[in-house]
């Protein structure tokens, strides 16, 4: 008998919780807009969303991932209303497929950094001199970057390593994150001696507390032109958030997280 009652409770616990609009006709109807965002803007965007919510009393939900993965989800019909990519080619691809309102707006230029966790056998320097030395001396066991196939920061990391002649020798030691923030997590914890991660993540308190980083020269890789766009399904709240991201308050936050801001050009 007790078992039967426990089972009933288990079932009810699942059925009752607030907002049980599980089988509703349209999950997006009336709910706050869902924004797809590249993982490198994570900490900056969380802060911007918090401000936006405080000022407008409107809620925004965010799904973070790599730009490539999010693009695939949008192409397959995921219910996003807005997309912040880490590289504009993904936005253009969606625009060409007729899934966006327009060709979007450039909102930031991303930068790459080398990050090494505390106690690492590696030093962070902008010329990657110690990485080269460590490689020669066998001090590297694991080195993290994002997956170049679908994460723009991974592609930039590959360009950096290639330009420095480190791509080939680093091959056996590379560990690939699904997206930029997983790469940062790999670089900061576990057996990795470091990694190439977005400067915007390296500057976030949760990450900077774990080690040290050095900003890489812009010339080492193609610019990470981060473009955002409203998708065809975008509603009023998403449009308001899109506009808010171009306001001084949001731009200041982006600047604080190390992004270069585009001049007012689209």
């Amino acid at each position, binding site marked *: 008998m007790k078992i039967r009652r426990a089972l009933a409770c288990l079932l009810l616990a699942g059925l009752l919780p607030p907002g049980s609009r599980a089988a509703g006709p349209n999950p997006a109807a009336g709910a706050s807009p869902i924004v797809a965002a590249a993982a490198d803007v994570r900490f900056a965007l969380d802060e911007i969303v918090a401000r936006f919510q405080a000022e407008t009393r409107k809620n925004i939900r965010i799904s973070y991932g790599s730009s490539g993965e999010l693009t695939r*989800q949008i192409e*397959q019909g995921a219910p996003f209303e807005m997309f912040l990519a880490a590289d504009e080619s993904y936005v253009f691809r969606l625009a060409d497929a007729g899934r966006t309102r327009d060709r979007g707006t450039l909102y930031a230029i991303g930068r790459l950094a080398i990050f090494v966790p505390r106690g690492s056998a590696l030093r962070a320097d902008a010329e990657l001199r110690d990485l080269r030395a460590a490689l020669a001396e066998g001090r590297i066991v694991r080195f993290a970057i994002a997956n170049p196939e679908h994460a723009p920061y991974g592609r930039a990391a590959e360009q950096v390593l290639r330009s420095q002649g480190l791509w080939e020798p680093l091959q056996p030691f590379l560990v690939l994150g699904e997206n930029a923030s997983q790469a940062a*997590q790999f670089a900061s914890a576990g057996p990795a001696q470091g990694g190439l991660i977005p400067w915007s993540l390296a500057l976030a308190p949760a990450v900077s507390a774990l080690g040290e980083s050095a900003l890489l020269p812009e010339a080492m890789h193609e610019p990470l032109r981060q473009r955002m766009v409203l998708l065809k399904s975008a509603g009023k709240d998403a449009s308001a958030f899109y506009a808010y991201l171009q306001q001084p308050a949001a731009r200041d936050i982006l600047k604080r997280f190390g992004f270069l801001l585009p001049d007012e050009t689209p």
Partner: protein
Amino acid sequence: MDRSALALSFRLGAFTVLLLLPIGVALGRWLAFTRLRGKGGAEVALSLPLVLPPTVLGYYLLLAFGGGSALGRGFEAIFGHTLAFSFEGLLAASVIANLPFAIQPMQRSFEGIAPEIREAAACSGLSPWQVLGRIDLPLAWPGIAGGLVLAFAHTLGEFGVVLMVGGSIPGETRTASIVIYDRVQAFDTAGAGAMSALLLVLSIVALGVVQLLSSRVGRRHG
């Protein structure tokens, strides 16, 4: 702790179990009593989700649910949104992924019913529905309940299929197990730890319940 994700997981588990109850009883009972040739094949097919990598299942479901398939387009035409990346899609995926977890314990406990009892029931003129209601369900209920508990617990823990079919959409498809993945990437160890501990406890409770239920079956037949 992300309560909305936890509520979502519980809701997903509850609906999965609700759907699997009739499906599992029907299929488990059929597998237990049929003498058809095709039984072996059906058993293999229904057990497939046990051994299949969740990503393989996720991949095929994504194909089946996406805008490129008739099912996906039909669903979109009726409900106005895609089956992939929605709660309904997750639910369908969850039911399929949990088929063996629900069916196998049910089948075992139907098989444990002494044939003489069912024969006697048939001789006394009970219809098949009466046999189900008066003989099979009362005798096999611990196995049925056990299957449902396993399916519920497994739904809370499902990760690969959910990530592929559902993405990670807050309030729609970001379940408790996806939250752990997301929190780790947000460098939020406290959040990941709290959710992990909770799921650990829930799993232990579920296994305890299953253990209790199977000891009931043992007592009855032992």
